[in-house]
């Protein structure tokens, strides 16, 4: 039995009749200490998948279990780094992390909590900014705080929901290296969600492509057997890197691509008659009256 396991998980939204299935019959197993990246199209339900693992949403069918225990709700054993950081703007960096530490380790002494927070802030290289508020930090710094907060919770699983999606390319590259390093050093089980195959290959041990939605399914898992630490400059010319990348892209564009037949959407046309341009102009412009097709009265006159 794997550490983190999803079995036949499906999830949809909407009410009966207008229902869209986002994820269909997903199976996923992640071993303890493994770093798995799920690479998929935007809008394919990646965030829904991470929310299911986090317990913020529950699957319609199938089970999510961690350590053989079924996930029935969110909990601090699964630390999440949200796409939009989710830092509380009225708290400083220290207070944001302290909120988590105070809640999870209420029995610790103040000194131990302080040391714990300082350690994790230092880990992401933000010791100089510990008393600043999120508004005074750049996007990259905010995301580091978010990572520090998740790590300070000492979770069993670290869930990264497109953590670098909102960052510029250079910051993104730096943080990829940093999170990759911190992640593998912590020895934690990590699930990374991303839309960038390179990011996945650079950071993860194993990559699983997620097909296009609706009704997205997971592709075959692709092991990234590249030496760590991975050097992004050298990787660009590494034939193995290229092969893995090609494999992911091939699946995403092939079997996992948009299924044109499965898209069904009810189109509702506006219930309006086109405006009559022949109407005479008055002093204050054309008098525009919106007319609805449904309000038009039709009379059938039978002629004999």
């Amino acid at each position, binding site marked *: 039995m794997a550490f983190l396991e999803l079995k036949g998980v499906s999830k949809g939204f909407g009410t009966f009749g207008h229902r869209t299935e986002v994820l269909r019959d997903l199976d996923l197993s992640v071993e303890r200490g493994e770093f798995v990246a799920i690479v998929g199209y935007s809008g394919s339900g990646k965030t829904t998948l991470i929310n299911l693992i986090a317990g913020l949403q529950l699957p319609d069918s199938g089970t999510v279990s961690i350590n053989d225990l079924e996930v029935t709700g969110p909990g601090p054993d699964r630390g999440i780094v949200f796409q939009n950081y989710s830092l*509380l703007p009225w708290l400083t960096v220290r207070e944001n992390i302290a*909120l988590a530490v105070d809640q999870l380790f209420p029995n610790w002494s103040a000194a131990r909590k302080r040391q714990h927070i300082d350690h994790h802030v230092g880990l992401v290289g933000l010791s100089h900014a510990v008393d600043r508020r999120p508004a005074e930090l750049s996007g990259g710094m905010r995301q580091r705080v978010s990572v520090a907060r998740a790590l300070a919770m000492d979770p069993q699983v670290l869930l990264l929901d497109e953590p670098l999606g909102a960052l510029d390319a250079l910051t993104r590259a730096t943080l990829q290296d940093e999170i990759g390093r911190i992640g593998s050093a912590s020895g934690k089980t990590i699930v990374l969600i991303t839309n960038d195959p390179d990011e996945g290959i650079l950071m993860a041990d194993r990559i699983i492509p997620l097909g296009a939605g609706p009704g997205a399914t997971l592709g075959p898992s692709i092991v990234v057997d590249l030496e760590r630490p991975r050097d992004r400059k050298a990787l660009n010319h590494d034939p193995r890197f290229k092969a893995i990348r090609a494999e992911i892209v091939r699946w995403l564009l092939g079997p996992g691509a948009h299924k044109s037949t499965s898209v069904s959407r009810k189109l509702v046309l506006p219930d309006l008659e086109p405006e009559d341009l022949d109407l005479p102009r008055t002093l204050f412009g054309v008098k525009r009256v919106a007319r609805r097709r449904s309000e038009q009265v039709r009379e059938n006159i039978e002629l004999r």
Partner: protein
Amino acid sequence: MKKFPPWLSNILMPFVGIVVTLVLWQAISGRVVQSRQPDGTMEESKAGLLKDLPGPITTWEKTRKYVVEPFAKREELDQGILRFTWYSLVIVAKGYAIALALGTPLGFLLGLSKSFTKMFDPIIQILRPVSPLAWMPLGVVLFSNTGRAANELAALFTIAVCAMWPTVLNTAVGVRAIPQDYLNVARVLKLSRWQTLRRIMIPATLPYMFTGYRLSLGIAWLVIVAVEMLTGRIGIGNFLWNEYNNGLYTSIVLCIVTIGVVGFLLDRAMSLLERRFKTA
């Protein structure tokens, strides 16, 4: 043309505006003219566009004693203008405190529960536009058996019930606007309901709450004049009404200016507080 530095123009421009207003006021206000009658006596009469409106110079001359000794207490109905204002401010503060104490939790309930909103929103929308002049008699009746405190309680009731609504509605909007992300943080950390309220929801709603508080304070200050006119409590509104009955129009102008200035200062103070609590 050389531009003034911003700090100078920030002072200069309003000053120019005030001067222009004073000049216009003087121009349209009534003045006293003397005319020689056919029988040789001099007769005084008023002239001008609004001949009963006292101009700024007349106002200053007639109401000096209220302004230069703002805290003097000569008689019950003859006190310095700031002393009157102080009486009014005290009662406003009490009524306002009641309004906030009732309005904030009510706003939270409305923001948190959809069914509560559906139940009580129509009633709030009906009570909200009711004028203080309409509430006041009800307040007097309700508290008529409380003896000496009756007037004060009626005043507090009226202020509270009129000033409460912006706080209620803004708090409710603020609670509904709390980003789901913040609540997700609370869920992941498994914060208790009370903790979630205290650590996440209240701080996240504060900016909205303060907007409500500011609007409520404005209304409380509006209501006090009406309340004092009706109940006869000593205060600036009551002073205004008495001077109207005495035919001293200059004092009315003084009261209007004072009420305006105090209202403006209260609003400024609240908006400074509000900015202090703005997050992100």
